[in-house]
């Protein structure tokens, strides 16, 4: 028997509330199945199982909040003898050698991220009261200077830090709204990024004339609901380029870069309630433009209704932030740790453009790269950006 533990859906997640179960004791589950929904600061997340097996016992009733790493339910692996002693699996459970059968659609590999990245607070010496308070206020304890016994962070340090960074410090347990929780999660992740990641920034201007012409021709024959979105082109171009520039695609974990063979593009989505989330489109380099369009539409809708899956939250290997028709000409993004690159796509605009010595007007976009200088250098970053630009000149190959 194996305990399925509350997964860490991001390095800053401390706990989650079980919203509902999609399984019950006796229920047969397959790798990739959604087994339930957990409410986190990032919204409701559908959690998946990574092994085939049979659910034996639900340990946490819906409505209860549990810490990351605590058992949620118990299941029996498919190959497991019925009386094997209870083992504890890591959260999320490690996949044993893949079972023969693969179901469609192919589920993503388990996120190595959550288990591999130590939660920042774990290594910090902090009192229980300080941890409680920091959790309430959404403060990353690694950023707090301790003054307690043996340099431990105590409540007063947390409060002082909170005032320093302009956080509202309510007198008693504050009723935090979902939006406030997300704000706190973003604050923690972005603070960590700017604290740990030495960013470098590059930008280039790319003509979209060929891409928009090609897309217009493609979409002309289609009904509105089947048209390919422009963002699908940039996503695909970035994903293909990332395959050729491995130092842009992966994670910086424990002082070393870990390249990812697969390209899971995180798409930054702003939420109407405020806040931002960047769920992953798995294997974006392998998907057709139609499939990417479907993925984008589906992701945006589910992100805004707060129904993302755990693998989508944790799997992204680099992020694309596209402002679309709104916004500004260019953006300089903050890398989402532990990723090492963020590609920013500005608003398309018509600009003077020189083609074969003649001045013409083209739709152009500015593409920027925020790179982690620990993992890559500016020269490679420049070639990466250039490659994205080149790919966008041959849309038919995307």
């Amino acid at each position, binding site marked *: 028997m194996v305990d399925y533990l509350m997964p860490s859906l991001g390095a800053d997640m401390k706990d989650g509330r079980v919203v509902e179960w999609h399984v019950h004791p006796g229920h047969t589950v397959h790798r990739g199945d959604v087994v339930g929904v957990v409410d986190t600061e990032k919204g409701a997340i559908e959690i998946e199982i990574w092994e085939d097996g049979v659910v034996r016992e639900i340990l946490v009733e819906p409505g209860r909040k549990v810490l990351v790493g605590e058992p949620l339910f118990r299941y029996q692996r498919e190959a497991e003898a019925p009386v094997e002693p209870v083992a504890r699996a890591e959260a999320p459970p490690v996949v044993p050698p893949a079972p023969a059968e693969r179901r469609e659609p192919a589920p993503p590999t388990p996120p190595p991220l959550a288990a591999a990245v130590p939660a920042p607070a774990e290594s910090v010496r902090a*009192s*229980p*009261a*300080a*941890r*409680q308070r920091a959790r309430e206020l959404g403060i990353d304890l690694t950023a707090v200077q*301790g*003054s*307690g*016994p*043996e*340099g*431990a962070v*105590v*409540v*007063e340090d947390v409060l002082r830090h909170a005032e320093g960074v302009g956080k509202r410090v309510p007198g008693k347990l504050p009723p935090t709204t979902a939006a406030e929780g997300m704000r706190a999660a973003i604050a923690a992740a972005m603070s960590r990024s700017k604290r740990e990641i030495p960013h470098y920034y590059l930008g280039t201007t790319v003509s979209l004339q060929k891409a928009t012409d090609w897309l217009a021709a493609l979409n002309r024959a289609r009904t509105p609901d089947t048209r390919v979105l422009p963002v699908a082109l940039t996503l695909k171009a970035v994903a293909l380029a990332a395959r050729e520039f491995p130092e842009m695609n992966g994670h910086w974990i424990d002082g070393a870069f870990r390249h990812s063979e697969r390209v899971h593009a995180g798409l930054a989505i702003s939420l109407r309630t405020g806040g931002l989330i960047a769920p992953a489109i798995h294997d974006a380099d392998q998907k057709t433009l139609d499939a990417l369009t479907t993925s984008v539409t589906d992701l945006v809708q589910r992100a805004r209704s707060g129904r993302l899956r755990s693998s989508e939250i944790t799997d992204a290997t680099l992020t694309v932030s596209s402002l679309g028709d709104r916004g500004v000409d260019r953006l300089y993004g903050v890398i989402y740790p532990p990723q090492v690159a963020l590609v920013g796509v500005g608003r398309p605009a018509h600009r003077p453009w020189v083609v074969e010595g003649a001045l013409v007007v083209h739709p152009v976009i500015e593409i920027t790269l925020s790179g982690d200088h620990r993992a890559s250098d500016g020269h490679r970053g420049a070639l990466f950006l250039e490659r994205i630009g080149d790919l966008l000149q041959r849309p038919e190959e995307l």
Partner: protein
Amino acid sequence: MNGAATATAMRTMTYREAVREAIRDALTRDERVFLMGEDVGHYGGCFAVTKGLLEEFGEERIRDTPLSESAFVGAGIGAAMAGMRPIVEIMTVNFSLLALDQIVNNAATILHMSGGQFNVPLVIRMTTGGGKQLAAQHSHSLEGWYAHIPGIKILTPATLEDARGMLWTALQDPDPVLIFENTLLYNMEGELPDDADAVDIDKARVRREGEHVSLITYGGSLFKTLEAARVLAEEGVEAEVVDLRTLRPLDNATILASVSRTRRAVVVDEGWRSGSISAEISARIMENAFWNLDAPVERVCSAEVPMPYARHLEQAALPQVDTIVAAARRTLGRAGGPDVDER
């Protein structure tokens, strides 16, 4: 020692006189009350607590006993079961071990063993604690041991008010109550109102309010702890001093409320550290207030040796103002000096 009413006249007296007045009051109010123990009559008590009571109340009610703790505690249990309200005095807690069988196997259990037919409304008073160079057979603090036993109540009056007021309430209790009087307190002088009367025996009291650290103590250590709080205040540390008053049942609510507010606790207990009442209190804080703590719970206890006779060694073995101050400083992350006790 807070006066009940400001208009009441106050009298200066010692802790010893407060205990004597409590016994006299009980003997006067209830004819079922009588006192027995070694040298309580003609000699006036080993610590002179009962001086003059024999002359006042006579041999029927102030009874000298042989040096036989098991016998006279057993007699007290029998008298209580038969309807009397005996006060049994045992000279020191060390000698009470000779009556441990009567206390633990009889007094604490008879209500249960008789299926609820017999209560044992017995009060046993005894001295406890070191500091008077009475050496290892007269100086220990074993009240924490007794606090382990269900079926009895353990009181540790530290103030004149409690020395005067706890006895009567204990006599009203249908079950056995043990009262531990710290030897060092008998000569302590203080003021008590003329109309001082019975007090509750189930609540701890905050003797000094403070926001930075809770110093939790009882009995003879209370005044050392209050002095430590005064020293800490000079450094800008406001310590809250909680007087437990009763070790069984412990007043969880008062302890936890204080610790949850200050987020730091030092338990001062004249008993030995291992398996002590301080260990129990620390455990309860962990169980119930863990998420409110800013520092590990500190304990200041007696050194784990038989109490030495030599004065400098005895003083070094007991909790002292400076060791309490140092422990409080450690909870605040200030240099407090090493903890001399073995962990």
